[in-house]
């Protein structure tokens, strides 16, 4: 469900069906659903209100609250961050290589659409989404169910953090993460990956995707280190 919220299948403020009905719809037990909702509540993806107008509601604001993201990043150690990016490195590189061998014309068109969407996305929220969707679509184009599932999970955990604006402190400047992530630069890197996939050049697609992830690691590590000093 956190993935479904991440993929935008639920809109902000939407009320979820009553528990029994929802559990039946999903084909899971009421117990499983309750546990899942508790996890989502922790992640801040749903909130439960009591009373006559009560119920469980989806929280997916158009632009994510920066303070919440900052706390999430603060809660991670640089080594756990590196470990996540290592997984991203393996998944994105392999997915790009396989996509070059397997992508359909429709997949390639969709990738190019997402490149364009990122280049014109006006808000932080829409940039985060266009970025995440691009990586998920590459995984889908690889025709691998498992890689796709891993990529969606990674985007859920990392996708927003990457776009976090740095705190305006001296320490941030010292750590070399002074600027907001440049969506045009990211879009250009995506375009190059999409072109390599369209050209069926797997080695190049992989190399570009891996380089892309490495730059992400540097940025996130710098952001995190700047926080520790602040």
């Amino acid at each position: 469900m956190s993935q479904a919220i991440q993929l935008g299948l639920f809109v902000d403020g939407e009320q979820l069906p009553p528990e029994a009905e929802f559990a039946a719809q999903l084909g899971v037990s009421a117990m499983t659903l309750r546990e899942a909702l508790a996890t989502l509540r922790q992640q801040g993806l749903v909130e439960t209100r009591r009373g006559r107008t009560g119920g469980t509601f989806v929280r997916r604001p158009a632009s994510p609250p920066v303070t919440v993201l900052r706390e999430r990043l603060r809660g991670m150690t640089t080594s756990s961050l590196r470990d996540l990016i290592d997984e991203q490195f393996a998944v994105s590189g392999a997915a790009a290589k396989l996509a070059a061998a397997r992508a359909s014309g429709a997949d390639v068109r969709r990738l190019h659409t997402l490149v364009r969407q990122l280049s014109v996305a006006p808000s932080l929220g829409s940039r985060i989404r266009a970025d995440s969707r691009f990586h998920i679509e590459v995984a889908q184009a690889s025709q691998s169910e498992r890689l796709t599932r891993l990529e969606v999970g990674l985007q859920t955990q990392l996708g927003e953090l990457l776009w976090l604006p740095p705190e305006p402190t001296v320490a941030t400047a010292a750590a070399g993460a002074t600027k907001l992530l440049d969506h045009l630069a990211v879009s250009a890197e995506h375009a190059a990956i999409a072109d390599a996939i369209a050209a069926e050049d797997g080695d190049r697609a992989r190399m570009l995707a891996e380089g892309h992830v490495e730059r992400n690691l540097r940025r996130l590590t710098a952001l995190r280190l700047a926080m520790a000093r602040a």
Partner: protein
Amino acid sequence: MGDLHAPASGVRAALEGVFGPVAAIGDGFVAQRRNCVASGTALTPDRLAGMREIVWQQLGLLPAADGAGIVAAPGVIAGKDRHLEWWQRPASGEGTADGFARIRLNLDPESIDLYDYLEMDWFTIPQREGRPYVYGPHIDFSCADRYVVTMTVPVTDSGPDGEREFLGIVGADIRMSHFEPELLAILRTVPAPAVLVTAERRVVAANTRSGSRAPGCPACPRPGTATSPRSRRSARTAAGSSPRPAKRRRTSSHA
């Protein structure tokens, strides 16, 4: 090279088995639309939802289907540019008649997450070419989170001026794990290395170890390029006939 007619018609028959139940959903859609037109009422989302039992019934006939339903053309459902009535088997368990779940998709045109089926091949190609279509296999993460083949049929009816009016498509997502054994069995009857490829040269099944794309397959467009004249011709011959596997699949041997 052996005779490829028998394996080719085997592949066609394997796919055609699915189009029957899918077309039955389409018949229901047309009937519902006619009811509304006759009684002068709007075809609202609620009225379309009244067709869910037909969808469930046909899903019952398609145990390998992850989901099935109706995807409407713009304006066919009152006040809706995009609307669908699509039902899925829950991820776990077999799913009983009342255990199906209605799919939820983001159809908000303002959202980056818009699931814009008006741009998707499984919708646009049957619409444009008036024929059933086989899309995939592909990972349908938005819908099924599975490796599936999406099989769709255009739905049309006579408009007020006697013109054919396009109402939308009906379709089903069939798990690739269902087709694979059948396709393999067919390819194994060919006494030479044989692959089944899509029009884009993607290998769907092979009787020997094979790459992801058939390299030397002639007259197949590369991804992202225009359809070749040859496949347009074959599309015309398929138009207007009974359901048949539409996306040109070719059994070719490379020895």
